[in-house]
């Protein structure tokens, strides 16, 4: 059964920070809360942990309302973005802390602490103080403390945001594996679409305190039903064009006419938003069914394995991804080709329209 939120709302200082959130998180599942800063991820986690109370709605664990149960009586564990450990206790005692409070026997505490320490690679550092180990190791300590408790609900609030690149990749792979075995409801907050995709499981896209869409990560990504959700789940940012369809004619901006191919074919007349991620746009090379736009290269950001090329067109600036180091130079005149069969079309209310919408 797991953890359920029913129409949960939070009003803080007169402002709604969480609006009518309903979620069902199943035991043993990985759930990603994806959204920009201030979208309500941390607040939502604090509600799930019992650190804060909702203004309205109910939170159920295994079907039972947990409103009156204090945090310390709940079976939850939480890892913060900042590395939070007890500075005066050794790494060992930091990890052992929940077990000590539960008054477990010495031998059992030792066994569980060492097992958790082994999982996160902290074994040689158990005698140190948190101030004597690196940031990554401090975060591993916090994670080990969450593991050792064996809680039913585990919350990880951007746990890797302050870590260096290599460590992030490593832990990102390990974390879901470590917690999957425990059968806990795992909730993972992140601002990065890429992280959500790598973690898999389910994703809830958040925007301004609302859950926009919740479902299996891959389907939320590939088949976003709402424009807001696609925006949250795109990095680089989602490219958008406002279009209007009259019969066979599709107009965008003042002068551009687009071909009614792919997704655009068979749309009823009206105004729409055409949305597409950077990976279905390429320079100079048509797709089977393309939407073509002429433009001028503004910037090419080169990250090594791929390049983000920003192209200025009559309809705005769009980003496309090229594999490897792009040859595009600023001020180059280029043709943009958008894969017409993979674009998203949203109606004026921001809901999916077009031929793929009912998949």
């Amino acid at each position, binding site marked *: 059964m797991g953890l359920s939120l029913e129409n949960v709302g939070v009003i803080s200082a007169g402002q709604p920070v969480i609006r009518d959130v309903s979620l069902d998180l199943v035991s043993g599942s990985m759930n990603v809360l994806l959204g920009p800063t201030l979208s309500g991820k941390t607040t939502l986690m604090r509600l799930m942990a019992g650190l804060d109370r909702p203004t309205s709605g109910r939170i159920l664990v295994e079907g039972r309302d947990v409103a009156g149960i*204090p945090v310390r009586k709940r079976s939850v564990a939480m890892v913060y973005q900042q590395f939070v450990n007890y500075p005066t206790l050794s790494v060992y005692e930091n990890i052992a802390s929940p077990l000590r409070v539960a008054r477990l026997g010495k031998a059992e505490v030792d066994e569980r602490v060492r097992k958790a320490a082994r999982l996160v690679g902290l074994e040689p550092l158990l005698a140190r103080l948190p101030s004597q180990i690196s940031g990554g190791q401090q975060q591993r300590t916090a994670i080990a403390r969450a593991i050792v*408790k064996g809680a039913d609900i585990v919350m990880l609030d951007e746990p890797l945001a302050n870590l260096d690149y290599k460590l992030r990749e490593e832990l990102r792979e390990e974390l879901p594996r470590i917690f999957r075995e425990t059968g806990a409801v795992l909730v993972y907050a992140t601002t990065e679409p890429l992280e959500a995709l790598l973690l898999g499981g389910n994703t809830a896209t958040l925007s301004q305190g609302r859950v926009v869409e919740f479902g299996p990560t891959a389907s939320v990504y590939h088949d976003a039903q709402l424009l807001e959700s696609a925006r949250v789940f795109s990095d680089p940012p989602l490219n958008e064009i406002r279009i209007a369809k009259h019969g066979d004619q599709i107009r965008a901006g003042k002068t551009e006419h687009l071909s009614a191919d792919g997704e655009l074919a068979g749309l009823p007349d009206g105004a729409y938003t055409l949305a597409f991620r950077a990976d279905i746009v390429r320079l100079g090379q048509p797709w089977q069914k393309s939407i073509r736009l002429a433009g001028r290269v503004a910037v090419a950001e080169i990250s090594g394995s791929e390049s983000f090329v920003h192209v200025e067109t009559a309809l705005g600036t769009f980003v496309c991804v090229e594999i490897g180091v792009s040859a595009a130079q600023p001020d180059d005149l280029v043709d943009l080709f958008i894969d017409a069969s993979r674009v998203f079309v949203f109606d004026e209310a921001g809901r999916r329209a077009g031929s793929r919408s009912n998949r």
Partner: protein
Amino acid sequence: MHASRLSRVFLIVYLIVLMLPIYWLINMSLKTNTDIVSGLGFYPKHPTFAKYLFILTDPTWQHGFGVSLTFVAINTLISVTVALPAAYAFNRYAFVGDKHLFFWLLSNQMAPAAVYAMPFFNLYYALGLFDTVWAVALAHCVFNVPLAVWILEGFVGGVPREIDETAAIDGYSFPHFFIKIFLPLIANGIGVTAFFCFMFSWVEQLLAMTLTSSHALPIPAVMTQAYALEGMDWSLLAAAGVLTMIPGAIVIWFVRNHIAKGFALGRV
């Protein structure tokens, strides 16, 4: 190089100015009264520890030191114990009037001790606390509790809330968390606070003298009596002065590291 030599000279001059009165006090305490009144002398011509010996063996002086140390210790203990939960509450919780109450606490410090002398005298007399160490220890709380709350609140604020929350998630009850996790985290602050309470209570004269008469005479009172009864015994007073500095110096020695960190972190 030039600048550093200049700053060194400046520092040495400053230290001399700072240490001169203390040196002079020690100087006087080792002289005889005849030497003191006979003219300027930078060192004792006939050094003697006679006055120290007298003070350390005389029952009145011994009792005076005992009384002073006792009420100072009681006061420091009460102030810190009472202020800790208050400082935590002021920092962590929002309640109606919290900011006003916090400022009001500080405003207690603004009134001179003389204002409180009369009401305390009357009250303690009625309660039978007059002329006991408790009278002075409790009276000094009027100044020391607000001071302690004020200082400690700054240190409490230096501890991230997430630590409190993590402890709650780990299952700690509040008292358990407060003692096992939280107090060690603000140990520096407690050290600094204890030091300030100690020093205030140790040097405070007016309340200490008003609220005692014979059984619980503190050091300042004994000193006053010393020159009232026997005329000006300069070197005896100087020796007593040196001896009163010693407890303070010992306390500073013990909390010196805490104070250095405390000044860097908190509200001192």
